[in-house]
């Protein structure tokens, strides 16, 4: 990694596998940048020095929660003013990417490695809106729009 100006990055995902992937990717970024996290799991205990906001969980099964989740993410973005937003999915990340577009913050989507056959549902929703859209599978990349640059495993 290069060592020029550190940026403030807001990293958000669903709990479980999305979060494990996100934190593994952010582990090295933490040495270069200021990381702010958000994740919907109240049982989760952040590591020392890790700033993790708790947000309302939302999934394809309870779409109405998109509204309170969006309000929370909106508040975090206004408070923290990050330079970039990064997500591995699913719905809470999609919310953040859409709000990032609204606030003109750079957005980076890394589709979960669990989506082997096709881009995730949340990924398909934000594909046209994220500044950088990455798949972890070479066979799912599509010229300039869906990039493959590596994977968490």
């Amino acid at each position, binding site marked *: 990694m290069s060592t020029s100006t550190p940026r403030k990055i807001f990293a958000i995902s669903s709990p*479980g596998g999305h979060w*494990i992937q996100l934190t593994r*990717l952010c582990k090295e*970024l933490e040495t270069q*940048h200021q990381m702010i996290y958000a994740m919907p799991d109240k049982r989760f205990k952040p590591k020392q020095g890790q700033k993790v906001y708790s947000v309302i969980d939302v999934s394809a099964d309870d779409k109405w929660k998109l509204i309170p989740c969006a309000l929370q993410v909106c508040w975090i973005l206004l408070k923290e003013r990050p330079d970039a937003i990064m997500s591995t999915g699913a719905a809470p990340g999609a919310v953040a990417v859409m709000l990032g577009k609204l606030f003109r913050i750079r957005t980076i989507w890394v589709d979960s490695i*669990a989506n082997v056959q096709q881009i995730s549902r949340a990924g398909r929703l934000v594909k046209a809106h994220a500044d950088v859209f*990455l798949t972890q599978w070479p066979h799912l990349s599509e010229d300039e729009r869906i990039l493959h640059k590596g994977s968490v495993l």
Partner: protein
Amino acid sequence: MIFVAVGTQFPFDRLIRCVDEWAQEHGAAVHAQIAGGEYVPQHANWDRFMTTDAFNDQLNAAELIISHAGMGNIITALEQNKPIIVMNRQHKLGEHRNDHQADGLAWMSKLPGVYTATQCSEMQALLSRKHELVASGQHDLSRRSQLVDFIDQAIRA
């Protein structure tokens, strides 16, 4: 000790029942995280949900991990150098909202230290030779470094 974890999103009774019945028959020590499952283990110790610390304690104590085919537990098992058997959730049985876990099973089985089962019979066959299941040793992180470097550049762009 065997640690079974089904994640927090959905129950996975088919997996819990399968491992619990095998453990009862073979007198094996099992701790299970069962989420909102209706089936309550008759033999295994169990929690519905666990804190990060409690989860890590069980993980460290276990010599074998059993899980739904979710990436979180697979990555964690690789990092902790423990062998893991995963069984995929099936959409048609109402175990997930789509079949992406079935789609992923073929490549998961190629990861060193990761073993896969679709049916209970396959899971129990693997359990019956559990002493032969070995962890990966070291896993290749070169693809991760490439991805992180690209993200770092994309953030600075």
